C-alpha cells in the first residue's frame, strides 16, 4: 500500500521519508498502587516516519508524560511496561538490556525535558554538562577526544542552538529560562539522535522566546533528519509545529491524524471540544471550558472514559470501550460514533 499521500504536510521544507522511525504497538504502562492498578497509558499504538513531527496532546494526568518516559525506558517503579513494543528504526527497545538501553539513550533517542531550569546541574559549567553525555557514550575501544576537540564540539553545538560560544564558561544560574532550554537542546542533539522527545519544552517561557525555541528545535531536527515527538497541551503550538497530532485522554490515544485534517475536521468529541475551547484573537466570545473532570485512572468506567463529559454519548458508550478505528489515510479515532461509517 502506498503511503505517499499520507505523509503530506503544509509545513515548509518538511522532508518526511516513508521509513518507519518509531513504531509503538499496544504500549501499556501500569502503576501498581495500594488502591489498585493505575492504567496511565493503555494500548497506545502509532507510527512515526523519519523526519516527521508528531505532537502528543492531552490534559495533565492523561498519560502523555508516562508514554514519553516509557519510550525512553525511564519508567520508574511502581510503574512498569505491562504490554506492547517500541521499535526504533527496526530495533525493539523494550527487549534491550540496561546497558544497551543506556547506550541508546541520547545516541538514538534523546529527551529535551520539561523545565530545563531544573534539569541542569547547578554546580557544573555549561560546557562540561554538554560534553558529559558525549564522554559517557564513548565505546570501550574509542579514544577520549582531546580538550581542543571537545571545546570545538561545545562551540559548534552552542552556535547551532543559537547561543554564543562564551556561554560554555557560565553556570546555569547565569542564564535566562530560554537560554537554559537552548542548552538542554544542545545536550539533546550532541550525539545526533534519530528521535527527539521534547516534553513541554516551552511551558514556562513567554510567546516570543517560545517561538524562537520551537523554531530552533525544528531547524535542528531538520538538520539531523530526525523525527520528533512533542508532548504538550498547547494546541496553538501543535498547529504551528507539528505534522501529525495524537490526542490522549485518560491513558488512551483517542485520535491520530495529520494536523491540518484534525484541526479542520476533528472527529472525536473530545478533540472537537479541545479545538472549540481555544481562545482566539479574531473574535471575542464567551469562554467554553470542557465541563467535568477526567476519570481517576485507578477507577476507570466500564465503557468509554470520556462518556461522562461527552455531548454525543449514547447507550453503548456506557458499556463498551471503543476500539481504534481507521477512518481513511492516517486518521484513527477511538469512538463508537464512527463504527457504522467504517463498516459500511
Amino acid at each position, binding site marked *: 500500500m502506498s503511503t505517499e499521500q499520507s505523509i503530506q504536510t503544509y509545513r515548509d521544507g518538511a522532508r518526511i521519508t516513508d521509513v518507519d522511525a518509531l513504531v509503538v504497538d499496544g504500549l501499556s504502562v501500569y502503576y501498581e498502587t495500594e488502591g489498585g492498578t493505575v492504567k496511565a497509558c493503555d494500548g497506545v499504538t502509532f507510527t512515526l516516519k523519519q523526519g516527521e513531527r508528531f505532537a502528543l496532546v492531552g490534559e495533565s494526568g492523561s498519560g502523555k508524560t508516562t508514554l514519553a518516559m516509557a519510550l525512553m525506558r525511564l519508567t520508574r517503579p511502581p510503574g512498569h511496561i505491562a504490554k506492547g513494543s517500541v521499535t526504533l528504526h527496526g530495533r525493539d527497545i523494550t527487549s534491550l538490556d540496561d546497558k544497551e538501553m543506556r547506550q541508546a539513550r541520547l545516541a538514538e533517542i534523546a529527551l529535551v525535558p520539561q523545565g530545563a531550569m531544573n534539569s541542569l546541574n547547578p554546580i557544573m559549567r555549561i560546557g562540561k554538562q554538554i560534553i558529559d553525555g558525549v564522554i559517557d557514550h564513548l565505546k570501550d575501544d574509542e579514544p577520549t577526544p582531546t580538550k581542543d576537540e571537545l571545546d570545538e564540539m561545545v562551540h559548534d553545538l552552542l552556535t547551532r542552538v543559537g547561543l554564543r560560544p562564551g556561554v560554555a564558561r557560565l553556570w546555569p544560574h547565569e542564564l535566562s529560562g530560554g537560554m537554559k532550554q537552548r542548552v538542554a537542546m544542545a545536550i539533546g542533539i550532541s550525539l545526533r539522535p534519530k528521535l527527539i522527545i521534547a516534553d513541554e519544552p516551552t511551558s514556562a517561557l513567554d*510567546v*516570543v522566546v517560545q517561538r524562537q525555541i520551537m523554531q*530552533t528545535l525544528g531547524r535542528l531536527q531538520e538538520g539531523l533528519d530526525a523525527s520528533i515527538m512533542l508532548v504538550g497541551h498547547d494546541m496553538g503550538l501543535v*498547529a504551528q509545529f507539528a505534522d501529525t497530532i495524537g490526542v490522549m485522554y485518560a491513558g488512551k490515544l483517542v485520535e491520530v491524524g495529520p494536523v491540518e485534517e484534525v484541526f479542520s475536521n476533528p472527529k472525536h468529541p473530545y478533540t472537537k471540544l479541545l479545538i472549540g*475551547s*481555544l481562545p482566539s484573537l479574531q473574535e471575542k466570545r464567551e469562554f467554553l471550558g470542557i465541563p467535568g473532570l477526567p476519570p481517576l485512572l485507578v477507577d476507570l468506567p466500564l465503557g468509554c472514559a470520556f462518556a461522562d463529559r461527552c455531548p454525543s454519548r449514547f447507550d453503548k458508550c456506557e458499556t463498551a470501550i471503543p476500539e481504534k478505528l481507521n477512518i481513511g489515510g492516517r486518521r484513527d479515532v477511538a469512538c463508537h460514533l464512527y463504527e457504522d461509517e467504517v463498516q459500511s
Partner: protein
Amino acid sequence: MSTFLELDHVTKKFGSEGMFGNGMVTIAVDDVSLTIDEDEPSITTVAGESGSGKTTLSRLLLGSHVPTEGRMLYRGKDFTQLTRRERRNFRREIQPIFQDPFESYNPFYKVDHVLSEPIKNFKLASSGREKNRMIEDALEMVGLVPGETLGRFPHQLSGGQRQRIMVARALLLKPRVILADEPVSMVDASLRATILDSIRRLNRDLGISVVYVTHDLTTAYQISDNILIMYRGTIVEAGTVDQVIPNPQHPYTQLLIESIPQPDPKNRWGSEPPQQNWDTSDTDIAGCRFADRCPAVMDQCRTSAPKQYLINEKQLTRCFLHEEKGEMQNPDITSTFQTESETIKAIPADMSA
C-alpha cells in the same frame, strides 16, 4: 472621579553602579505614570515578555516595592506618608492572586485556613456563623461547591480549584482592586476558562477593578478592556484592547502578536525573530531599548529615546515611527483608556436628549 491609586513618574531600578556594583543596572520600570480609578472598574492587562518589568510594576502597585524615583499615591496621599491604619486599609483594598496555586498554600492546613485567616485578621465577621456564611458565599461566587471544597487539604484539589479558592480568598476582603499575576499560566488550558470567567465576573458583578499581568495576549484580548505592553521597563504601547490587538503600532507589539501560536496549521510562523541581548546594562542604552531587535530600526532609534506619542484617542505608542503624531501632553498612560469610557457615557446621554 476618584482615584484609588496613582503612579506619578515612577522608576524602579535594581543593581548598582559604582564601586560595589557590577555595573549592570536593570531599570525594571522606567518613568511610568498611571492611575487606577475606582468609579469605573475595568480590567487592565499588563503584558510583556519575561524581564519586561510587568511583575515589578505589579509589586509597586501592591506596595511591596518602593519606587526608586517618583511617587505613589493612595487615595491622593503619598504612600510613604500613610498612617498604620491607612496602610492596613490599603492592604485590604488591593488583593493579589499569584501565579502558582501550589505554593500559595501551606500543605499542613486544610484549605479552610486560607479563607478563615483573612476574616480573623481584618475582623470581618462578628460570629462563627457569619464567618462560615461569608466563606460559603465567596466559594459559590467563584463556582465552587462549599461542601466539596471545605475540609480538604490542598493536595486533594486540582490546580484549577486551588486557584479559584485564591480568587474566593481575595473576594472575602471586598477589595477595590485585584491584581492577578499570571493567574492561569500554571493551570491546564481546559481549566483556564473557568478561572478567567470568575475573574471577569468579579469585575462585572462586584465592580472590582482588575490588573491582569500576563504574557498571554489571547486571554488578555478576551477578558480585558485596556492593555499596557511593556518592554525592558518601558511601556511601549497602551490603549484599549479593541484598538491595540487588531492594530498594533509598535514593532514589539507586532512581534508579540505574530508569535502567538495560532491554532491554524495552514498559517504558520514566519522566520525566526532575533534574540534579546541581555549583556547590555539598561543604563548603557541611549536610544530605544528595542532598537537591536527592531525590523524597522532607524538611525535616531539608537541615539535618542522615543517619547509617548498619541496615535489616536485610544492608543499611544513609544516609537519614532509615530513621532509626527506629537508627544502626549498628559504623561498618565491611563488617560488613553479613559477617553473611551467617557465616550460610552456620552452616548446614552445623547440618545436620551
